[in-house]
């Protein structure tokens, strides 16, 4: 069954039909979220939020566009929200740590800092660069498609991709030497 049919069934009020969409896209969305956010808990939360948002706004879906693109676009924005929140949280956490180090030390500090998955090379890239790299390498997206996901111009997407590819090549060359 194609996406169009699935969405039409969901719009008729069949929630279980939405499971098929979730099953079809959960791997892809989770992979992108993991690449952007770098930790599993946040990525899972982001994916949940995205599927919720998609279900609640299915009536606004433009059938001329692809569901995959729409999902990625919502997911990218959600991940940006998470990163912003995280930045604010870490700022606050740093302040708390500085002001009352002993208090924080008594608590389990692991609950504040989640274990990152994205290590090494990807760490060197910005979240925008990681996103374009994922869309380009895994999905074979063109710069226009990447731009529509990230809500930026295609030139910006191309520049991000170029920088990301260059950085990775430089790191690979360094490792080989």
């Amino acid at each position, binding site marked *: 069954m194609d996406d169009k049919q699935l969405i039409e069934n969901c719009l008729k009020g069949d929630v279980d039909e939405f499971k098929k969409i979730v099953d079809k896209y*959960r791997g892809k969305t989770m992979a992108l979220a993991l*690449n952007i956010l770098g930790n599993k808990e946040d990525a899972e939360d982001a994916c949940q939020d995205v599927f919720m948002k998609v279900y609640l706004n299915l009536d606004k879906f433009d059938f001329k566009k692809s569901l995959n693109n729409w999902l990625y676009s919502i997911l990218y924005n959600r991940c940006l929200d998470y990163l912003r929140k995280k930045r604010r949280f870490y700022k606050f956490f740093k302040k708390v740590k500085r002001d009352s180090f002993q208090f924080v030390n008594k608590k389990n500090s692991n609950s504040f800092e989640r274990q990152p998955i994205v290590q090494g090379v990807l760490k060197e890239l910005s979240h925008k660069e990681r996103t374009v790299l994922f869309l380009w390498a895994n999905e074979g997206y063109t710069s226009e498609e990447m731009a529509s996901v990230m809500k930026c111009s295609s030139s910006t997407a191309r520049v991000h991709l170029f920088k990301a590819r260059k950085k990775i090549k430089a790191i690979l060359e360094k490792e080989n030497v």
Partner: protein
Amino acid sequence: MFRCKAINFLFIILPLKCWRDFLIRRHIQECPECQKKLAGVEEVKPFLIQEEEVGGLEGLWPEIKTKLSQEKRKKLRPLRPRLRWAFRAVGLFVAIAAGIWLYRIFTLDKSPLKESLVERFQINYIRIEDKPARAFLFQPHDSEMIFVWAEKNI
């Protein structure tokens, strides 16, 4: 080779992304030397987390379903209590606005300036071009400004 280096230098110093993109489209995309300095798809893929590597997503649907049913219940919640609160809020706002308006009217009407205008200003005699002239005092409504108007006796 020199051209590639110059373009790469330009890429670094150019401040706008559209200018950088121009360089990518006009040279970097076409130039085999520049392409050698960029990682290819196969080189990039090992660094990215792939769909196949992502596991343990079986719990995603039950959680979404629970949230969706909660959302549905929220939507189905009767409108009346919400409307009641909305009316209360609007009523309170109107009462506050009316109170402020009435307060302003009463306080401005009892302005001491208006009452004491004659007491505060007294013009005994005024001359224009060595001839006696007429003088008027005028205070606009709701204002603390006082105009003194003098005109020739014709």
